[in-house]
């Protein structure tokens, strides 16, 4: 069953007096439970694709239907609420709030949705336990290693039980060994929860862990194939 349907997706950015067409009409469908890797050289449109799919930006043309919802018709407030409840994000630079503990960082999306901390905390603690940080849940980010921070970020992405997780070069700031371990953990966790993932990566070994690889070049799909 299709979770994501992107049709004729285009994105143009103004650059001085000219404009640059970053995406030139993508058609992508992703099914529920798929783990998809998006690869391609710099400037191929990977991150822009993720941003459009994640409702962080609006397409210049085309449509994104996610879990049956047409994102381009949403107001900003509705889009924010949609992101809180249906999407999870994992960033290359982790983007944890330095003032919050690991557990508080994980709780954040649901706290922003108005839930009480006491209600969210058990779920956050369980997720941290799942990613191997049960003992470090009260530590602040500056007391964690890079791999630990990214594991907290993964737990944060999962806490609202989203239908789709978008990961933007999640191992880009980790050494290869840690990156591989974190990614394996990420894959196992989402698989056992039946969640869908779209991950941008430059690392062929990371892409190999996905079910399917979409290769982009110059704003168009160059290849779309399952991994072996």
């Amino acid at each position, binding site marked *: 069953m299709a979770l994501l349907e992107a049709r004729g997706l285009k994105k143009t950015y103004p650059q001085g007096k000219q404009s640059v067409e970053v995406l030139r009409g993508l058609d992508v469908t992703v099914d529920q439970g798929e783990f998809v890797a998006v690869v391609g050289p710099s400037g191929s449109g990977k991150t822009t694709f993720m941003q459009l799919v994640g409702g962080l930006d609006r397409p210049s043309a085309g449509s994104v239907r996610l879990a049956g919802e047409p994102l381009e018709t949403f107001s900003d407030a509705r889009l924010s609420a949609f992101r809180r409840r249906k999407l999870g994000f994992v*960033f290359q630079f982790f983007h944890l709030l330095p003032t919050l503990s690991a557990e508080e960082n994980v709780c954040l999306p649901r706290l922003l949705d108005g839930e009480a901390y006491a209600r969210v905390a058990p779920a956050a603690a369980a997720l941290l336990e799942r990613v191997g940080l049960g003992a470090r849940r009260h530590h*602040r980010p500056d007391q964690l290693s890079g791999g630990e921070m990214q594991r907290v970020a993964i737990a944060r992405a999962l806490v609202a039980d989203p239908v789709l997780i978008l990961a933007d070069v999640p191992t880009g700031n980790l050494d290869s060994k840690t990156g591989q371990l974190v990614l394996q953990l990420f894959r196992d966790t989402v698989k056992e929860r039946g969640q869908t993932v779209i991950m941008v990566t430059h690392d062929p070994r990371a892409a190999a862990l996905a079910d399917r690889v979409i290769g982009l070049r110059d704003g168009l799909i160059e290849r779309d194939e399952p991994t072996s």
Partner: protein
Amino acid sequence: MIRTLLRFAGLRHIRRKPFRAALTALGIALGVALFVAISAINESTLAFFRTNVSSMTGKASFTVLGSPVGFPEELVEVVRAVPGVEAAVPMVESRARFGDGETLVVFGVDLLQEAAVREYGGGPGDDQHAEDVVEDPLEFLNQPDSIIVTRSFAAAHGLRLESPFDLVTALGRQRFVVRGLLEPKGTARAYGGGVAIMDIDGAREMFGKVGKVDRIDVVPAAGVDRDELAGRITQAVARAGSGLRVERREDQARSMAKLVEGYQGILAFCSLLALLIGMFLVANTIAVAVADRRREIAVLRALGASRAGILVMFVIDAAIMGVVGGIIGAVLGRELAELLVERVSASMSRQYVTPIDVSELHFSSAQAAAGVIAGVIAATLAALWPAWRATRVSGGEAFGAGPAGAPPLVRSRRATIRRLAGLGMLAAFGLLAASGASHPALDAVTPLLGVAGAVLAAPWLVALGLHGLGWLVRARGPLGRLAVLRLACQNLLRDPARTGGNVLSLVIGLMLVITMGVIQFSFKTSIGDWNQRVLRSDLWVSSIGRVLAVDVQPLSEELGPEIDRVPGVDLADGKGARGFRIVHHQHEGRQIMLKAMEPQHPKVGNAWFDVVDRPVDQAVAELFAPATTGVLVSQNFTRHFGERPGDTLELATPSGPERFRVLGTVVDYGSPEGTLYLSRAVYRRLWKDPLVSAFSVEVAPGHTPLEVQQAIERELGPRGLIATRNSQLREQFDVMMDESFGYTRAIELAALGIGLLALLSTLLLSLLARQRELGMLRAIGMSRGQLARMILGEAALLGVFGGLAAVALGVYIAQLWVVSTLASSLGWFIQVHVPLSSVAITVVTGLAVGLVVGLLCARRVATLEIRAALEGS
């Protein structure tokens, strides 16, 4: 290298970030504007005094002066007889009410002798003498109602030659006729042109100074050594009578200027404080700019830029903004001075009970240049520290891919040292102020310690408040559901030192508000309570109808029995109205106040005499005992001169030196130098002054004060007397106190304006530095509204906690200032009263500033593009 850095990095940055540059320049501009405005006002006030003195003294080199009640006219001949004196010309000077409460200074001169000293402009382009101003001097002299006024005064009041107009004199209201008009030259320029000339004999008659003069202006003969002549005149007048002094022309301007020295000092302090706030704005902006351009600095360092080059680049950036701000500030300062000069001079007039009419603003290019230089120096000094921080950036940072993960929370040891240093300075300030020690060096250091301590401690106080709130809104705390507020609070606590720095300018501005509020309220309450204790009479009858002050036109004591005949006036022992005389008196080089009293009406008893160290009835009985020549001394008199009850005090009276026994100590706020109470019978005899400043009147049973007031004004109003009810007197006092401090509002507003700009600039720039984080929050689902509320919350929290820190520090500083510094300089015991309204105003103003800044910032972040923010572009 420095030229290259400036050309390719520094100056271009100013062009690329015009908003940031404009904000910084504006902060400096406001500081410079206050600095320039206050220095122009102070200079104009001094010029006013110089003009006054030169207008009054004319060609005279010396002036013989006595007490305000005058001295015997025979002394004119004594001075004339001193070898080397070319001319000695007497003058009588009085203040007369006219119209709707305005005051005119009336000079009584000997028209035929005036030419030797003063010039009067009779017509355009002429330098005429007094006798030339009127058509027929003899006729002028023969008509005692003759008066000459200035053309400006005549124009302002619709008067022409032969116009009649009324003045209230010692004899009550009298009609005069304008028989000459003066051009604004020479003597006519004194007191801003609010002067009139009469014949000296007529003036003596009208103003109760028969047989007296107020001053003798002395012109030395050609070739005479002035120092020697001054010595001879001093000896001659000392032989003839005591209480007289010989002042040189230049000393007179200095003595007048000295009168307002303290007042001008406070103004100058406020303007420096405003400049200091502007410096914080510059320091904050440059600090954030350094953080913002860290990558750029690293690249420059990697490319070979030296540390000195980086330092100079930032310092010159700031200096350029200082020049721009300085020029704008100088222009604004001139306008501000125009706006404030009349209010300040009116406030000084009220405070010093001396007509100070600084209508002409003296603004020179030197003052403007000083303002610009001050702006540049302030901006340059302020930039040094953040610029030095910029030099610490390593070129290696250029190779990094950007900040990975979370920046560490700042727990700086330096912040702890600064905090402790601040607390230490505040404690030292407290000890120094409380010790009452006085020394020029200490007097300069003490306020600096207070301000520096407050500057260092304020960030800590703000952080303390935020920690308290952080505890309340912590995840499992009582307000744990307020996630956005918790985020706002924790964002501010991420780097407490920087947060404190961001809000520092606002704290200083707010401190000014609360400090002035506490000082004003403490004075108002202490003096108001005292007034209420001592001023118990039902009615007060005077020539001016305003507060009981020294420089009102005194009245003849003969008016007392006339008041007694008004129905409703309560008589006791056959007497109703009780006259009292308030005059200045020179004592050991200081101007003290004398209050000559009559035994009071039984209804009010001895309320006037607020004796603190003896039974009041006993002390007052001795004061009025016929066999005693005694005085009650005010507490500040004892502090300044040392005499205590039981001591003997020698006063120089117009009848010669006289010894007075000190009978007790009283509370009195009449004079900052000290006040003496004595019996009016003794005063009348020794000072040969039968006039009274005002009468106190009690209302007979069955009548109301309003009825009797109306009856007095019906009977004696045509004679120029005004009756004031006690309640009106208190209202007048409140209005006067409010007006006296009115000018401070402009200073507070300017300081707050700079504080607002500083907060806005630093918050906006810190948002730029946090844009990736804000992008992440939006990405994980924070709505625009939530983001805006978080930013608004941060700014509001800064405003509120800035206000609370300002209240704590401001009340501490104001309290010590009132209790110690002012007490030791004025000798007054002022109870500290903290007005809750000022506390509320300070916190609410902080909140309001925070909300304004928050709304502006929130509008900006609401339009944040998530994609761009996440990319950090």
